[in-house]
Protein backbone atom coordinates (compact mmCIF):
# COMPACT_ATOMS: atom_id res chain seq x y z
CA UNK A 1 0.00 0.00 0.00
CA UNK A 2 1.43 3.36 -1.02
CA UNK A 3 0.31 6.92 -0.42
CA UNK A 4 1.46 8.56 -3.65
CA UNK A 5 0.45 12.10 -3.10
CA UNK A 6 -1.01 14.20 -0.31
CA UNK A 7 -2.83 17.51 -0.70
CA UNK A 8 -3.64 19.69 2.29
CA UNK A 9 -5.51 22.94 2.71
CA UNK A 10 -6.61 24.79 5.84
CA UNK A 11 -4.93 22.17 8.02
CA UNK A 12 -3.07 23.43 11.13
CA UNK A 13 -0.21 25.69 10.10
CA UNK A 14 0.43 23.88 6.82
CA UNK A 15 0.43 25.92 3.63
CA UNK A 16 -1.92 24.77 0.88
CA UNK A 17 0.16 22.32 -1.12
CA UNK A 18 0.49 18.93 -2.82
CA UNK A 19 3.32 16.59 -1.91
CA UNK A 20 4.59 13.75 -4.09
CA UNK A 21 5.91 10.98 -1.84
CA UNK A 22 8.49 8.27 -2.31
CA UNK A 23 7.12 4.72 -2.24
CA UNK A 24 9.86 3.92 0.29
CA UNK A 25 11.46 6.30 2.75
CA UNK A 26 10.12 9.82 3.27
CA UNK A 27 12.05 11.99 5.69
CA UNK A 28 10.25 15.04 6.99
CA UNK A 29 12.80 17.32 8.62
CA UNK A 30 12.38 20.57 10.47
CA UNK A 31 12.93 22.31 13.75
CA UNK A 32 10.33 22.09 16.46
CA UNK A 33 7.18 24.09 15.90
CA UNK A 34 7.61 24.39 12.13
CA UNK A 35 4.88 21.88 11.31
CA UNK A 36 6.56 18.55 10.58
CA UNK A 37 4.34 16.61 12.99
CA UNK A 38 1.32 18.42 11.51
CA UNK A 39 2.16 16.78 8.20
CA UNK A 40 2.25 13.34 9.83
CA UNK A 41 -0.99 14.20 11.57
CA UNK A 42 -2.58 15.02 8.21
CA UNK A 43 -1.69 11.51 6.97
CA UNK A 44 -3.13 10.07 10.18
CA UNK A 45 -6.36 12.03 9.65
CA UNK A 46 -6.58 10.79 6.06
CA UNK A 47 -6.28 7.18 7.27
CA UNK A 48 -8.41 7.21 10.42
CA UNK A 49 -10.48 10.40 9.99
CA UNK A 50 -9.10 11.67 13.29
CA UNK A 51 -5.90 12.95 14.81
CA UNK A 52 -3.59 11.22 17.25
CA UNK A 53 -3.18 14.45 19.19
CA UNK A 54 -6.70 15.78 19.64
CA UNK A 55 -10.23 14.40 19.69
CA UNK A 56 -11.62 17.68 18.41
CA UNK A 57 -11.22 17.62 14.63
CA UNK A 58 -12.34 21.25 14.51
CA UNK A 59 -9.12 22.20 16.33
CA UNK A 60 -7.25 21.10 13.22
CA UNK A 61 -8.73 23.89 11.12
CA UNK A 62 -6.13 26.59 10.56
CA UNK A 63 -6.77 29.77 12.50
CA UNK A 64 -8.84 32.03 10.29
CA UNK A 65 -9.87 29.27 7.87
CA UNK A 66 -13.43 27.90 7.79
CA UNK A 67 -12.54 24.33 6.86
CA UNK A 68 -9.70 21.95 6.17
CA UNK A 69 -9.34 19.34 3.49
CA UNK A 70 -6.81 16.52 3.37
CA UNK A 71 -6.80 14.33 0.30
CA UNK A 72 -4.52 11.68 -1.06
CA UNK A 73 -3.98 9.22 -3.86
CA UNK A 74 -3.62 5.71 -2.61
CA UNK A 75 -2.12 2.88 -4.58
CA UNK A 76 -3.38 -0.53 -3.45
CA UNK A 77 -1.93 -3.36 -5.53
CA UNK A 78 -1.80 -1.09 -8.62
CA UNK A 79 -5.33 0.20 -8.13
CA UNK A 80 -5.61 3.92 -7.54
CA UNK A 81 -8.04 5.28 -5.02
CA UNK A 82 -8.74 8.89 -3.99
CA UNK A 83 -9.41 9.51 -0.33
CA UNK A 84 -10.42 12.82 1.23
CA UNK A 85 -11.40 14.12 4.65
CA UNK A 86 -13.10 17.51 4.88
CA UNK A 87 -13.95 19.26 8.09
CA UNK A 88 -15.99 22.44 8.35
CA UNK A 89 -17.46 24.15 11.40
CA UNK A 90 -20.60 22.01 11.14
CA UNK A 91 -19.21 18.57 10.45
CA UNK A 92 -16.95 16.16 8.69
CA UNK A 93 -17.21 14.48 5.29
CA UNK A 94 -15.35 11.34 4.27
CA UNK A 95 -14.96 10.77 0.55
CA UNK A 96 -13.77 7.86 -1.56
CA UNK A 97 -13.22 8.70 -5.21
CA UNK A 98 -15.28 11.82 -4.73
CA UNK A 99 -18.36 10.24 -3.20
CA UNK A 100 -19.37 10.49 0.44
CA UNK A 101 -19.08 7.40 2.63
CA UNK A 102 -20.04 6.63 6.19
CA UNK A 103 -17.28 6.04 8.70
CA UNK A 104 -17.63 2.23 8.55
CA UNK A 105 -17.09 2.27 4.83
CA UNK A 106 -14.28 4.82 4.91
CA UNK A 107 -11.99 3.48 7.62
CA UNK A 108 -9.82 0.57 6.73
CA UNK A 109 -8.81 1.84 3.29
CA UNK A 110 -5.50 3.52 4.11
CA UNK A 111 -3.90 1.06 6.50
CA UNK A 112 -1.25 2.44 8.74
CA UNK A 113 0.96 1.66 11.70
CA UNK A 114 2.28 4.50 13.86
CA UNK A 115 5.09 4.88 16.33
CA UNK A 116 5.41 7.99 18.48
CA UNK A 117 6.69 8.84 21.98
CA UNK A 118 3.18 9.54 23.18
CA UNK A 119 2.17 6.00 22.24
CA UNK A 120 4.93 4.37 24.28
CA UNK A 121 3.44 6.04 27.33
CA UNK A 122 -0.07 4.98 26.28
CA UNK A 123 1.05 1.43 25.49
CA UNK A 124 2.57 1.21 28.93
CA UNK A 125 -0.12 2.87 30.99
CA UNK A 126 -3.48 2.55 29.25
CA UNK A 127 -5.26 -0.81 28.88
CA UNK A 128 -7.68 0.97 26.58
CA UNK A 129 -4.88 1.91 24.20
CA UNK A 130 -3.62 -1.68 24.03
CA UNK A 131 -7.15 -2.87 23.28
CA UNK A 132 -7.39 -0.22 20.58
CA UNK A 133 -4.12 -1.40 18.98
CA UNK A 134 -5.54 -4.92 18.82
CA UNK A 135 -8.94 -3.77 17.57
CA UNK A 136 -7.37 -1.63 14.87
CA UNK A 137 -5.24 -4.50 13.63
CA UNK A 138 -8.32 -6.67 13.72
CA UNK A 139 -10.59 -4.41 11.71
CA UNK A 140 -7.95 -4.06 9.05
CA UNK A 141 -8.36 -7.81 8.59
CA UNK A 142 -12.11 -7.91 9.25
CA UNK A 143 -13.81 -4.61 8.46
CA UNK A 144 -16.98 -5.88 10.19
CA UNK A 145 -15.13 -5.72 13.51
CA UNK A 146 -15.56 -1.94 13.53
CA UNK A 147 -19.35 -2.18 13.36
CA UNK A 148 -19.24 -4.94 15.96
CA UNK A 149 -17.33 -2.61 18.31
CA UNK A 150 -19.67 0.32 17.66
CA UNK A 151 -22.69 -1.85 18.39
CA UNK A 152 -21.11 -3.22 21.52
CA UNK A 153 -20.16 0.16 22.91
CA UNK A 154 -23.73 1.37 22.44
CA UNK A 155 -24.98 -1.64 24.42
CA UNK A 156 -22.56 -0.71 27.22
CA UNK A 157 -23.76 2.92 27.16
CA UNK A 158 -27.39 1.83 27.41
CA UNK A 159 -26.58 -0.54 30.24
CA UNK A 160 -24.59 2.10 32.13
CA UNK A 161 -27.51 4.46 31.86
CA UNK A 162 -29.78 1.79 33.35
CA UNK A 163 -27.22 1.03 36.09
CA UNK A 164 -27.28 4.68 37.15
CA UNK A 165 -31.07 4.43 37.53
CA UNK A 166 -30.75 1.09 39.32
CA UNK A 167 -28.41 2.60 41.88
CA UNK A 168 -31.30 4.70 43.24
CA UNK A 169 -34.23 2.29 42.69
CA UNK A 170 -33.65 -1.38 42.16
CA UNK A 171 -36.87 -3.22 41.48
CA UNK A 172 -37.74 -6.55 39.90
CA UNK A 173 -38.44 -4.67 36.68
CA UNK A 174 -34.96 -3.10 36.69
CA UNK A 175 -33.44 -6.54 37.27
CA UNK A 176 -35.35 -7.93 34.29
CA UNK A 177 -34.17 -5.08 32.12
CA UNK A 178 -30.57 -5.52 33.21
CA UNK A 179 -30.90 -9.20 32.26
CA UNK A 180 -31.83 -8.11 28.76
CA UNK A 181 -28.77 -5.85 28.39
CA UNK A 182 -26.53 -8.49 29.96
CA UNK A 183 -27.73 -11.00 27.40
CA UNK A 184 -26.75 -8.61 24.62
CA UNK A 185 -23.37 -7.93 26.28
CA UNK A 186 -22.75 -11.66 26.45
CA UNK A 187 -23.77 -12.27 22.83
CA UNK A 188 -21.97 -9.32 21.24
CA UNK A 189 -19.09 -9.54 23.72
CA UNK A 190 -18.39 -13.21 23.02
CA UNK A 191 -17.93 -12.47 19.32
CA UNK A 192 -15.45 -9.68 20.11
CA UNK A 193 -13.53 -11.84 22.58
CA UNK A 194 -13.25 -14.72 20.16
CA UNK A 195 -12.08 -12.48 17.32
CA UNK A 196 -9.49 -10.81 19.57
CA UNK A 197 -8.25 -14.14 20.88
CA UNK A 198 -7.63 -15.44 17.37
CA UNK A 199 -5.92 -12.22 16.37
CA UNK A 200 -3.68 -11.99 19.44
CA UNK A 201 -2.68 -15.60 18.87
CA UNK A 202 -1.55 -14.72 15.34
CA UNK A 203 0.45 -11.73 16.60
CA UNK A 204 2.09 -13.97 19.23
CA UNK A 205 3.18 -16.40 16.55
CA UNK A 206 4.86 -13.54 14.69
CA UNK A 207 6.56 -12.28 17.86
CA UNK A 208 8.12 -15.71 18.32
CA UNK A 209 9.76 -15.73 14.91
CA UNK A 210 10.81 -12.08 14.72
CA UNK A 211 14.53 -11.71 14.24
CA UNK A 212 14.78 -8.03 13.50
CA UNK A 213 16.57 -6.99 16.66
CA UNK A 214 13.62 -5.13 18.13
CA UNK A 215 12.07 -7.97 20.04
CA UNK A 216 13.30 -8.26 23.59
CA UNK A 217 14.04 -11.87 24.38
CA UNK A 218 10.99 -13.72 25.59
CA UNK A 219 8.49 -10.95 24.82
CA UNK A 220 5.02 -12.36 24.96
CA UNK A 221 1.54 -10.90 24.80
CA UNK A 222 -1.50 -12.27 26.54
CA UNK A 223 -5.14 -11.54 26.11
CA UNK A 224 -6.98 -11.80 29.39
CA UNK A 225 -10.66 -12.02 28.48
CA UNK A 226 -12.90 -11.64 31.54
CA UNK A 227 -9.86 -12.72 33.54
CA UNK A 228 -10.04 -16.39 32.72
CA UNK A 229 -11.72 -17.34 29.46
CA UNK A 230 -9.57 -19.88 27.67
CA UNK A 231 -8.36 -19.09 24.16
CA UNK A 232 -9.70 -22.42 22.94
CA UNK A 233 -13.23 -21.88 24.25
CA UNK A 234 -16.08 -22.08 21.74
CA UNK A 235 -18.33 -19.10 21.10
CA UNK A 236 -21.17 -20.64 23.17
CA UNK A 237 -18.69 -21.36 25.92
CA UNK A 238 -17.39 -17.78 25.99
CA UNK A 239 -20.95 -16.51 26.02
CA UNK A 240 -22.00 -18.66 28.96
CA UNK A 241 -18.87 -17.78 30.92
CA UNK A 242 -19.59 -14.10 30.32
CA UNK A 243 -23.20 -14.59 31.42
CA UNK A 244 -22.13 -16.20 34.68
CA UNK A 245 -19.66 -13.47 35.36
CA UNK A 246 -22.26 -10.82 34.65
CA UNK A 247 -24.64 -12.44 37.13
CA UNK A 248 -21.93 -12.60 39.78
CA UNK A 249 -21.00 -8.95 39.31
CA UNK A 250 -24.53 -7.55 39.22
CA UNK A 251 -24.44 -6.14 42.73
CA UNK A 252 -21.02 -4.55 42.30
CA UNK A 253 -22.03 -3.05 38.96
CA UNK A 254 -25.06 -1.41 40.53
CA UNK A 255 -22.99 -0.12 43.42
CA UNK A 256 -20.35 1.38 41.12
CA UNK A 257 -22.98 2.47 38.56
CA UNK A 258 -21.10 1.10 35.58
CA UNK A 259 -20.62 -2.00 33.54
CA UNK A 260 -17.65 -4.05 34.80
CA UNK A 261 -17.80 -7.24 32.74
CA UNK A 262 -17.15 -7.64 29.03
CA UNK A 263 -14.51 -7.06 26.38
CA UNK A 264 -14.43 -3.32 27.11
CA UNK A 265 -12.67 -4.26 30.36
CA UNK A 266 -10.33 -6.92 29.05
CA UNK A 267 -6.58 -6.75 29.47
CA UNK A 268 -3.89 -7.20 26.87
CA UNK A 269 -0.64 -7.80 28.66
CA UNK A 270 2.86 -7.53 27.28
CA UNK A 271 5.39 -9.49 29.29
CA UNK A 272 9.14 -9.94 29.25
CA UNK A 273 10.27 -13.12 30.97
CA UNK A 274 6.82 -13.45 32.49
CA UNK A 275 6.85 -9.94 34.02
CA UNK A 276 4.36 -7.30 32.92
CA UNK A 277 6.30 -4.61 31.05
CA UNK A 278 4.01 -1.96 32.51
CA UNK A 279 5.62 -2.48 35.87
CA UNK A 280 8.94 -4.23 35.43
CA UNK A 281 10.54 -3.25 32.14
CA UNK A 282 12.96 -0.38 31.52
CA UNK A 283 11.93 2.48 29.25
CA UNK A 284 14.05 0.92 26.52
CA UNK A 285 12.32 -2.44 26.84
CA UNK A 286 8.90 -0.79 26.75
CA UNK A 287 9.83 1.06 23.58
CA UNK A 288 11.14 -2.13 21.99
CA UNK A 289 8.02 -4.00 23.04
CA UNK A 290 5.75 -1.51 21.30
CA UNK A 291 7.91 -1.59 18.17
CA UNK A 292 7.99 -5.38 18.17
CA UNK A 293 4.23 -5.42 18.64
CA UNK A 294 3.77 -3.05 15.68
CA UNK A 295 6.09 -5.08 13.47
CA UNK A 296 4.34 -8.33 14.39
CA UNK A 297 0.97 -6.75 13.55
CA UNK A 298 2.41 -5.75 10.17
CA UNK A 299 3.39 -9.34 9.47
CA UNK A 300 -0.09 -10.59 10.35
CA UNK A 301 -1.42 -7.96 7.98
CA UNK A 302 0.99 -9.10 5.26
CA UNK A 303 -0.23 -12.70 5.58
CA UNK A 304 -3.74 -11.50 4.80
CA UNK A 305 -3.05 -8.99 2.01
CA UNK A 306 0.35 -9.78 0.55
CA UNK A 307 1.53 -6.22 1.20
CA UNK A 308 2.31 -4.03 4.20
CA UNK A 309 0.51 -1.02 5.71
CA UNK A 310 2.34 2.32 5.57
CA UNK A 311 4.42 3.16 8.65
CA UNK A 312 4.51 6.52 10.42
CA UNK A 313 7.21 7.42 12.96
CA UNK A 314 7.08 10.73 14.77
CA UNK A 315 10.30 12.26 16.02
CA UNK A 316 12.31 9.15 15.27
CA UNK A 317 15.60 10.33 16.78
CA UNK A 318 14.08 11.19 20.14
CA UNK A 319 13.21 7.57 20.83
CA UNK A 320 15.99 5.61 19.16
CA UNK A 321 19.75 6.09 18.99
CA UNK A 322 21.23 6.52 15.52
CA UNK A 323 22.23 2.89 15.15
CA UNK A 324 18.83 1.45 16.14
CA UNK A 325 16.99 4.08 14.15
CA UNK A 326 18.87 3.17 10.97
CA UNK A 327 18.45 -0.53 11.70
CA UNK A 328 14.67 0.00 12.00
CA UNK A 329 14.50 2.03 8.80
CA UNK A 330 16.39 -0.71 6.90
CA UNK A 331 13.92 -3.33 8.18
CA UNK A 332 10.94 -1.20 7.20
CA UNK A 333 12.04 0.23 3.86
CA UNK A 334 12.48 -3.23 2.39
CA UNK A 335 8.82 -3.87 3.17
CA UNK A 336 6.79 -0.72 2.98
CA UNK A 337 6.43 3.01 2.65
CA UNK A 338 7.67 4.99 5.64
CA UNK A 339 7.12 8.53 6.86
CA UNK A 340 9.48 9.76 9.57
CA UNK A 341 9.80 13.15 11.15
CA UNK A 342 13.10 14.24 12.62
CA UNK A 343 14.94 17.33 13.70
CA UNK A 344 18.27 15.68 12.87
CA UNK A 345 18.03 14.38 9.30
CA UNK A 346 21.83 14.01 9.10
CA UNK A 347 21.64 11.02 11.45
CA UNK A 348 19.68 9.05 8.87
CA UNK A 349 21.86 7.02 6.57
CA UNK A 350 20.69 6.10 3.12
CA UNK A 351 20.03 2.40 2.65
CA UNK A 352 21.50 0.26 -0.10
CA UNK A 353 19.00 1.18 -2.79
CA UNK A 354 16.56 3.52 -1.16
CA UNK A 355 14.07 5.60 -3.01
CA UNK A 356 14.52 8.35 -0.51
CA UNK A 357 12.80 11.70 -0.50
CA UNK A 358 13.52 14.39 1.98
CA UNK A 359 11.28 17.32 2.80
CA UNK A 360 11.92 20.25 5.07
CA UNK A 361 9.17 22.09 6.85
CA UNK A 362 9.60 25.77 7.64
CA UNK A 363 6.63 27.74 9.01
CA UNK A 364 4.19 25.25 7.56
CA UNK A 365 5.67 25.32 4.08
CA UNK A 366 6.96 21.92 2.98
CA UNK A 367 9.77 21.83 0.47
CA UNK A 368 11.31 18.86 -1.22
CA UNK A 369 15.09 18.90 -1.09
CA UNK A 370 17.50 16.93 -3.21
CA UNK A 371 19.74 14.53 -1.34
Amino acid at each position, binding site marked *: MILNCLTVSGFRNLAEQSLPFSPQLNIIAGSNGQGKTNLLEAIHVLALSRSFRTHQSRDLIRHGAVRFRVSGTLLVKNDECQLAVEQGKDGKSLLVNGSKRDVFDYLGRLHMATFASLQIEQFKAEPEYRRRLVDRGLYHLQPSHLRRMALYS*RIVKQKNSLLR*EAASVYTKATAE*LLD*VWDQQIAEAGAKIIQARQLYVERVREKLKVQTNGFTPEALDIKYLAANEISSTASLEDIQSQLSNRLTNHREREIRLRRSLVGPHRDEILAEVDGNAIQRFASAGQQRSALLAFNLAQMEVYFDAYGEYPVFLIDDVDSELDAQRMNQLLRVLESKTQIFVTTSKPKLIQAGSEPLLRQFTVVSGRVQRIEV
Partner: protein
Amino acid sequence: MKDYAGPVETLIEELRKLPGIGSKSAQRLAFFLIRTPKREAEKLAHAILAAKESIRYCSVCNNITDVDPCRYCSDPARDRTVLCILEEPHNILAIERTREYHGLYHVLLGAISPLQGVGPDQLEIPGLMKRLQEGQVKEVILATNPNIEGEATALYLSRLIKPLGVKVTRIATGVPVGGDLEYADHITVSRALEGRRDFSG
Protein backbone atom coordinates in the same frame (compact mmCIF):
# COMPACT_ATOMS: atom_id res chain seq x y z
CA MET B 1 -32.55 40.04 16.29
CA LYS B 2 -34.95 38.94 13.58
CA ASP B 3 -33.98 38.68 9.93
CA TYR B 4 -37.50 38.80 8.51
CA ALA B 5 -40.89 40.30 9.33
CA GLY B 6 -42.53 38.72 12.39
CA PRO B 7 -45.08 36.39 10.70
CA VAL B 8 -42.45 35.10 8.22
CA GLU B 9 -40.05 34.46 11.05
CA THR B 10 -42.77 32.54 12.93
CA LEU B 11 -43.56 30.44 9.82
CA ILE B 12 -39.86 29.58 9.36
CA GLU B 13 -39.57 28.68 13.04
CA GLU B 14 -42.59 26.34 12.83
CA LEU B 15 -41.36 24.64 9.63
CA ARG B 16 -37.95 24.14 11.16
CA LYS B 17 -39.51 21.92 13.83
CA LEU B 18 -40.44 19.34 11.18
CA PRO B 19 -38.19 16.27 10.88
CA GLY B 20 -35.46 16.57 8.25
CA ILE B 21 -35.97 20.33 7.79
CA GLY B 22 -32.98 22.56 8.49
CA SER B 23 -32.90 26.37 8.50
CA LYS B 24 -32.28 26.64 4.76
CA SER B 25 -35.10 24.27 3.79
CA ALA B 26 -37.41 26.03 6.23
CA GLN B 27 -36.67 29.38 4.59
CA ARG B 28 -37.19 27.93 1.12
CA LEU B 29 -40.54 26.39 2.12
CA ALA B 30 -41.67 29.56 3.86
CA PHE B 31 -40.99 31.73 0.82
CA PHE B 32 -42.65 29.17 -1.42
CA LEU B 33 -45.76 29.24 0.76
CA ILE B 34 -45.84 33.04 0.80
CA ARG B 35 -45.82 33.09 -3.01
CA THR B 36 -48.62 30.49 -3.41
CA PRO B 37 -52.22 31.68 -3.90
CA LYS B 38 -54.14 32.13 -0.69
CA ARG B 39 -56.52 29.29 -1.65
CA GLU B 40 -53.65 26.79 -1.87
CA ALA B 41 -52.30 27.86 1.52
CA GLU B 42 -55.75 27.40 3.02
CA LYS B 43 -55.98 23.89 1.53
CA LEU B 44 -52.67 22.94 3.15
CA ALA B 45 -53.61 24.43 6.52
CA HIS B 46 -56.97 22.68 6.36
CA ALA B 47 -55.41 19.32 5.43
CA ILE B 48 -53.09 19.52 8.43
CA LEU B 49 -55.93 20.36 10.81
CA ALA B 50 -58.28 17.74 9.34
CA ALA B 51 -55.62 15.04 9.65
CA LYS B 52 -54.90 16.16 13.18
CA GLU B 53 -58.57 16.12 14.18
CA SER B 54 -59.67 12.87 12.54
CA ILE B 55 -56.55 10.72 12.97
CA ARG B 56 -56.00 8.94 16.25
CA TYR B 57 -54.33 5.85 17.60
CA CYS B 58 -56.27 2.61 17.18
CA SER B 59 -57.55 1.57 20.60
CA VAL B 60 -56.59 -2.05 19.88
CA CYS B 61 -53.22 -1.97 18.11
CA ASN B 62 -52.02 1.71 18.33
CA ASN B 63 -51.79 2.07 14.57
CA ILE B 64 -52.72 5.57 13.37
CA THR B 65 -56.19 5.49 11.90
CA ASP B 66 -59.26 7.55 11.04
CA VAL B 67 -61.65 4.81 12.19
CA ASP B 68 -61.41 2.99 15.47
CA PRO B 69 -60.60 0.08 15.49
CA CYS B 70 -58.32 0.48 12.46
CA ARG B 71 -58.91 -1.29 9.15
CA TYR B 72 -56.47 -4.11 10.01
CA CYS B 73 -58.06 -4.81 13.37
CA SER B 74 -61.58 -4.81 11.93
CA ASP B 75 -60.78 -6.80 8.75
CA PRO B 76 -62.50 -10.22 9.14
CA ALA B 77 -60.17 -11.74 6.51
CA ARG B 78 -57.05 -11.33 8.67
CA ASP B 79 -55.57 -14.17 10.66
CA ARG B 80 -56.31 -13.48 14.32
CA THR B 81 -53.91 -16.13 15.60
CA VAL B 82 -50.73 -14.26 14.56
CA LEU B 83 -49.61 -10.93 15.99
CA CYS B 84 -46.72 -8.90 14.58
CA ILE B 85 -45.15 -6.49 17.08
CA LEU B 86 -43.66 -3.26 15.78
CA GLU B 87 -42.09 -0.11 17.17
CA GLU B 88 -43.90 2.55 15.14
CA PRO B 89 -47.10 2.80 13.08
CA HIS B 90 -45.13 3.46 9.87
CA ASN B 91 -43.38 0.07 10.26
CA ILE B 92 -46.72 -1.56 9.34
CA LEU B 93 -46.26 -0.36 5.76
CA ALA B 94 -42.89 -2.16 5.48
CA ILE B 95 -44.58 -5.43 6.45
CA GLU B 96 -47.69 -4.80 4.31
CA ARG B 97 -45.56 -4.14 1.22
CA THR B 98 -44.42 -7.78 1.29
CA ARG B 99 -48.07 -8.90 0.80
CA GLU B 100 -47.08 -12.05 2.65
CA TYR B 101 -48.31 -11.25 6.11
CA HIS B 102 -52.00 -11.59 6.86
CA GLY B 103 -52.08 -11.49 10.64
CA LEU B 104 -52.73 -8.59 13.01
CA TYR B 105 -50.41 -5.93 14.43
CA HIS B 106 -49.48 -4.40 17.73
CA VAL B 107 -47.54 -1.13 17.78
CA LEU B 108 -45.46 -0.39 20.90
CA LEU B 109 -44.91 3.29 20.07
CA GLY B 110 -41.20 3.11 20.84
CA ALA B 111 -38.39 0.84 21.97
CA ILE B 112 -36.54 0.37 25.24
CA SER B 113 -33.71 2.89 25.53
CA PRO B 114 -32.40 3.87 28.98
CA LEU B 115 -30.32 6.64 27.39
CA GLN B 116 -33.52 8.31 26.20
CA GLY B 117 -35.39 7.50 29.39
CA VAL B 118 -37.63 4.95 27.67
CA GLY B 119 -38.41 1.87 29.75
CA PRO B 120 -41.19 -0.73 29.46
CA ASP B 121 -43.56 1.63 31.30
CA GLN B 122 -43.36 4.13 28.45
CA LEU B 123 -44.37 1.50 25.87
CA GLU B 124 -47.81 0.14 24.94
CA ILE B 125 -47.23 -3.18 26.67
CA PRO B 126 -50.30 -3.53 28.98
CA GLY B 127 -52.65 -3.52 25.95
CA LEU B 128 -50.49 -6.19 24.31
CA MET B 129 -50.62 -8.44 27.37
CA LYS B 130 -54.38 -8.02 27.55
CA ARG B 131 -54.75 -9.11 23.91
CA LEU B 132 -52.55 -12.15 24.50
CA GLN B 133 -54.44 -13.17 27.61
CA GLU B 134 -57.65 -13.35 25.58
CA GLY B 135 -56.13 -16.56 24.22
CA GLN B 136 -56.77 -16.24 20.47
CA VAL B 137 -53.16 -15.43 19.52
CA LYS B 138 -50.95 -18.51 18.97
CA GLU B 139 -47.83 -16.84 17.54
CA VAL B 140 -46.16 -13.52 18.19
CA ILE B 141 -43.63 -12.20 15.66
CA LEU B 142 -41.24 -9.71 17.23
CA ALA B 143 -40.47 -7.30 14.39
CA THR B 144 -38.89 -4.50 16.39
CA ASN B 145 -36.02 -2.78 14.56
CA PRO B 146 -32.79 -4.77 14.17
CA ASN B 147 -30.72 -2.42 16.31
CA ILE B 148 -29.73 -2.89 19.94
CA GLU B 149 -32.77 -1.02 21.30
CA GLY B 150 -35.11 -3.12 19.16
CA GLU B 151 -33.27 -6.25 20.22
CA ALA B 152 -33.52 -5.31 23.91
CA THR B 153 -37.25 -4.72 23.46
CA ALA B 154 -37.67 -8.09 21.72
CA LEU B 155 -35.72 -9.90 24.45
CA TYR B 156 -37.74 -8.22 27.16
CA LEU B 157 -41.09 -9.02 25.52
CA SER B 158 -40.11 -12.59 24.78
CA ARG B 159 -39.43 -13.18 28.47
CA LEU B 160 -42.81 -11.66 29.27
CA ILE B 161 -44.79 -13.57 26.63
CA LYS B 162 -43.23 -17.05 26.76
CA PRO B 163 -44.86 -18.00 30.10
CA LEU B 164 -48.29 -17.48 28.46
CA GLY B 165 -47.59 -20.46 26.20
CA VAL B 166 -47.59 -18.35 23.01
CA LYS B 167 -45.02 -19.19 20.31
CA VAL B 168 -42.51 -16.33 20.03
CA THR B 169 -40.47 -15.71 16.88
CA ARG B 170 -38.11 -12.93 15.87
CA ILE B 171 -37.78 -11.77 12.27
CA ALA B 172 -34.46 -12.86 10.80
CA THR B 173 -31.89 -10.10 10.70
CA GLY B 174 -31.56 -10.09 6.93
CA VAL B 175 -32.32 -6.47 7.60
CA PRO B 176 -28.89 -4.91 8.20
CA VAL B 177 -27.91 -4.81 11.84
CA GLY B 178 -28.24 -1.31 13.21
CA GLY B 179 -30.86 -0.63 10.57
CA ASP B 180 -34.46 0.40 10.57
CA LEU B 181 -37.27 -1.68 9.14
CA GLU B 182 -38.50 1.40 7.35
CA TYR B 183 -35.48 1.62 5.07
CA ALA B 184 -35.25 -2.05 4.16
CA ASP B 185 -36.68 -2.95 0.75
CA HIS B 186 -39.66 -5.29 0.62
CA ILE B 187 -37.68 -8.30 -0.61
CA THR B 188 -35.41 -8.03 2.43
CA VAL B 189 -38.39 -7.66 4.74
CA SER B 190 -40.20 -10.64 3.25
CA ARG B 191 -37.05 -12.77 3.56
CA ALA B 192 -36.79 -11.61 7.15
CA LEU B 193 -40.39 -12.65 7.78
CA GLU B 194 -39.88 -15.97 6.10
CA GLY B 195 -36.70 -16.73 7.98
CA ARG B 196 -38.08 -15.86 11.39
CA ARG B 197 -36.76 -18.08 14.13
CA ASP B 198 -37.87 -19.29 17.51
CA PHE B 199 -36.75 -16.74 19.98
CA SER B 200 -35.34 -17.43 23.38
CA GLY B 201 -34.96 -14.41 25.59
